[in-house]
Structures are given as C-alpha cells and as structure tokens.
C-alpha cells in the first residue's frame, strides 16, 4: 500500500504542488473570480455542465481526427511520389518548406480567407500541421530498409512496384506510427486555434466566447478539458505505436 503511494507521489508530485500553489495564490492573493477561478471553481463548473464540455470536446476531436487522417493520406501520397520520382521531390521541396515554415498562426488567417469561415478551414489547419512532419517521417521510413535488403531486391530483379509494396511500405510503418504520435496532439491544437479564430463549434470557440464574456471559470475549464483531450490523443497514439510498431520494427 505504502509502496503504491510512494510511487504515485513520485509520479504526480508536480501536479499536486501546482494545484496547491494555485489554490494558495487565489486565496492568499485575494484574486477575484473575474481574473482567475480557484480549483474548486473549475471543478464546480465542470460538474454543472458535463454535457456541454463533452459535446464540444467531441466536436473538436472529430475535426482534429478528420484533419489528421487527411494530412496522413496526403503525406503518404507525397512520400510515395517522391519515392518514385525525383522531379516530384524537386517540385515538392519548396511548397513543403513554405508550408512547414509558415507558423500555423500566420497560415490560418490566409486559410480562413481562402476557404471561408467554416469547418473546412479547421480541418485544413489540422491537416496542414500533420502533413509535413508525417511526410518527412514516412518518406524516410520508405527508404529505411535493413542493409542488404535493397541489394537483394535488385539482385532478384524485383520491379519498382514490388519493392515499394513488399519492402518499402512495411519498412515505413514504424515511422508512420511515430508520425501519428507526433501529429495527434498537434492536430488537436491546430483545431483549437482555428476554432478560436473563426468561431466554429468546439472547445476553442467555447473558450473564445467565455473569454469574451469574462467568464473565467468557463474559459479555464474549457482550457483544461482541451488539455486533457490533447494528452489523451497523445497517449492513445503512443499505445498504438507500441502495439503495432513492435511487429514491424527491424
């Protein structure tokens, strides 16, 4: 029993410390509810409106997932294109670099104007934040054959298509899973920023509205729920990586 407690303490001490400091800052500093809520305030807000937060969280999750899947699909297509064609590699370098370098917060206003103030922009934002890192990882994975396998395939006279499907694609799976792990929390984050900026349904919009109304309890609670969502997405992706990746790892 004490063993489990000490282990838990070792794992969670910074959170407990932070919680205590938070409560202390509110009480000792006599901070007004309008500036920042107390931990109890946040808990009460969540308990009062569980359906609201669940609904908005689901909305955000749905668009983030849609963007993630779209981004991965595009990344795979691009990776395969560069595997086949050097021209494709050249043609993609500059746009890829541009998209990668442009901070999401600079890209979003542009996207909003081009695609409109609706859910398409949010999905596009999530997809764009996924595409480049995934493309880099998957393209590298396609080439990451164990030494000697490439030479073997050439000696066996395997066609390019055969080499892609039988060797390169399985070799790329571990990297693809790493890409998902990195992109999962990022796509949630992108969706939230997009929702905040354009006001489509989701936790980001909930946060924006609450912020506008100076309803700090609601704003903070939305932020915390969004954090939990992001962390959950990451953990899920990591678990999937471990389970599926072990089979394909060289």
């Amino acid at each position, binding site marked *: 029993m004490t063993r489990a407690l000490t282990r838990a303490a070792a*794992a969670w001490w*910074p959170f407990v410390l932070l919680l205590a400091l938070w409560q202390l800052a509110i009480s000792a500093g006599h901070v007004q509810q309008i500036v920042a809520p107390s931990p109890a305030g946040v808990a009460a807000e969540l308990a009062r409106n569980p359906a609201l937060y669940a609904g908005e969280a689901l909305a955000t999750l749905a668009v983030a997932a849609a963007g993630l899947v779209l981004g991965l699909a595009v990344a795979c297509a691009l990776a395969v294109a560069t595997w086949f064609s050097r*021209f494709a590699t050249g043609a993609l370098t500059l746009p890829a670099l541009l998209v990668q370098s442009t*901070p999401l917060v600079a890209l979003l*206003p*542009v996207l909003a104007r081009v695609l409109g103030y609706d859910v398409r922009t949010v999905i596009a934002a999530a997809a764009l934040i996924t595409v480049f890192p995934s493309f880099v990882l998957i393209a590298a994975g396609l080439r990451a054959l164990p030494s000697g396998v490439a030479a073997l395939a050439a000696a066996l006279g395997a066609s390019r298509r055969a080499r892609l499907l039988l060797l390169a694609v399985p070799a790329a799976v571990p990297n693809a899973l790493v890409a998902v792990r990195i992109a999962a929390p990022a796509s949630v984050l992108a969706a939230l920023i997009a929702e905040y900026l354009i006001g489509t349904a989701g936790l980001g919009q909930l946060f924006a509205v609450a912020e506008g109304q100076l309803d700090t309890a609601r704003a903070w609670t939305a*932020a915390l729920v969004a954090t939990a969502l992001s962390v959950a997405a*990451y953990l899920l992706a990591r678990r999937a990586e471990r389970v599926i990746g072990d089979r394909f790892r060289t």
Partner: protein
Amino acid sequence: MSAPLRERRTAALAGATGIVAFVLAWEAAGRAHALGASWPPLSDVVAYAADRQHRGLLAAALAVTAREALIGYVAGALAGTLLAALALLVPPAAPGLERFAAVVNGVPIIAVGSICAVTFPPAVNPVLVAALGTFFLVFVAATAGFAAAPRAHRELFAALGASRATTFARLAIPAALPALVDGLRFAAPVAVVGAIIGEWFAGDRGLGPLLVNAMQNYQIALLWAAALLGALLSALAYGVLGVVRGAAARRFAP
C-alpha cells in the same frame, strides 16, 4: 561524367525545374483567380511588400515579433535544459517532471496566451508564451540526450571511479549535445508561433495582430505579405540552427 556526379546533376536539375514549376503555377493560379479572390499572384504580394509605404509597417512588425521570439526562446531553452539536468541529477524527480512537462505542453497555446495575459503584464505575454513552447521541446530533447551515453561509456566512468559531477560534465553533457541541438532547432519555429499567439492577447504590436487585422479587413496582399514574413523568420531561425546542429553532430555524435 561519373555516375554519382551525373545523379547529383539530375537531382539538382529536377529540383530546380520543380521549384520553377511551382512558382509559375502560383503566379498563373493567382492571376486567373483560380483559388478565389483571396489567393493573389506571388508577384502582387512581393510588389506590396516592396512598396515603400508598406515596407515600414511590415518591417516594424517583423522586428517586434523577432525580438520577442528570441528572448522567449533563450529563456525557454535555458529552463528546459536546467530542468532536464535536474531530472538527471535527482533521478526520483524525473518521472514526475516528465509527466508534468508533457501535460504543460498539452495545454492549448491559445489558453496559455490568454491566461498569461491576465495573470502577468500583457507586455511580456509574447515572450512568455514563446518561452513555454520552447521549454517543453528542449526539455524533452535534453532528457533524451542526457540518457544517450552508451552503456559502455557509463561503465567506463564508473570503473574509473569518476564522481557524479565529473560523469555529468564529461560524459552526459557532451553525449547529449546532438539531441539537445536537434531540440533547439525544432524549438525555433515554436518560439515564433508562441510570440505571435502571445501578441494576439497583448495588444497591437507585432505580426500577430497585423495578420488578424488584415484577415478581418480583407487586406489580402498585406495578409499574405505578413504570412510570408512570418514564414521567412521561422525558416531563417531553423536554418541557422541547422548549421549549428551539423557542426555539433560532426564533433559529438558517435
């Protein structure tokens, strides 16, 4: 011409052709309004940015954002490295700290920007948000780096009877440098994003408010010009650190 040289020539040629094709396509699509009124030809954007009337505004905004990002980056990188060193030197603290950093990173950056603007003076918000974003990436990279020394090297130091401090200074730090510099490289664009988001909640200086205002006022050319400047800033930071990374990898990687 030898085969490898020919390969490189073909690759470079293909690359150059691709880039030209991309630029031409953008220009054509923009002129034809193929992607809507909000996607201008590249030449329009460049002309706008070069115009004397607009240059000053864009340059000032860029300078503000760049400075905030830099200060935040340095602060966050230092904090991340120190905390990772702490986790190394006080092993029981490590799991808690790592979990904490992961969750802190999961807090949506807009929430961070908004809440910090209320809790701390708004003027420091961009620096603060940039620092927080940088902190996490550098912390993760430094933690991985400090654990990167191969077992044989660690056993060597143990058998030589080296103290913990000596082992840390002469083994852990040099062995950590490649991973650490990698983390520093990826953190640079994050600092730029953090600065921009921080600016959203802090006032009207910098690229952040400029972008939002241009979006809301349908100033398309200004919007694209500001976005491209943001991209350039980010790419420059990433590129400079890429050079540093190359040097570090050459010297310190096994």
